[in-house]
């Protein structure tokens, strides 16, 4: 086989060399991604410890369910894995951040009595409404902490419905072929 050599074209057409080494940008972005998950895991542990029995009985199982559902959906629906992963990690982080911050908010707001609030607003607020307000704060916490994981699980479940529930092209062809190849016998 003849090989044609052109003179002085080394600088013009350098040989392509593919390497397996990672660039600094790749290493940094990989480390960031792994660190994000480690941070989330640590935050999950901290929040579930802060919430004592509620954390043990609800936050740990619900966040576990979110992780597992996200991973299973990623595995089964490969077409949408990027979006599923992004949504899973950010919704869990949002949920945990809400629980972490809302605890501080309740601690700050709950001790304010209705007399103090009435003085601030220059109106008369009955004492019962102060209790109702702190009860409402607790209810908001309960509703958000229960409904966020359930909403996420429903969001994952609708992906299955959209992806597997429809009539695929292969199935349509199979059906048409089947009709053609198995004619009615008289």
């Amino acid at each position: 086989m003849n090989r044609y050599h052109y003179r002085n074209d080394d600088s013009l057409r350098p040989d392509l060399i593919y390497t397996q080494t990672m660039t600094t940008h790749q290493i940094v972005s990989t480390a960031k991604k792994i660190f994000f998950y480690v941070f989330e895991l640590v935050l999950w542990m901290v929040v579930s410890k802060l919430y004592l029995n509620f954390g043990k009985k609800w936050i740990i199982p619900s966040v576990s369910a979110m992780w597992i559902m996200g991973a299973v959906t990623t595995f089964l629906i490969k077409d949408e894995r990027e979006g599923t992963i992004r949504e899973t990690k950010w919704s869990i982080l949002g949920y945990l951040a809400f629980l972490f911050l809302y605890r501080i908010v309740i601690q700050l707001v709950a001790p304010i009595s209705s007399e103090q609030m009435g003085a601030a607003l220059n109106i008369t607020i009955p004492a019962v409404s102060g209790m109702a307000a702190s009860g409402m704060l607790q209810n908001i916490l309960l509703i958000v902490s229960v409904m966020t994981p359930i909403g996420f699980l429903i969001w994952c479940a609708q992906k299955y419905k959209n992806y597997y529930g429809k009539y695929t092209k292969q199935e349509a062809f199979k059906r048409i072929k089947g009709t053609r190849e198995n004619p009615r016998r008289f």
Partner: protein
Amino acid sequence: MLESIKSFLHTFSVYHINAFYSIAYFLKNNYFFIIVLIAIGYMVFEELRVDNYNYTNDERRII
């Protein structure tokens, strides 16, 4: 000779049974957490894989 072999086998079995028992005990007690860790690890793996697919090295150009 036989005694020393016997004692060696005894020590060997005790150590190994103890080790396997402790591993099994750990897995039994933490199986749920291990499943969750596997799920998280799988998601990290997939994310990095997608990132790697999408990655293009700008330094590597064909003239």
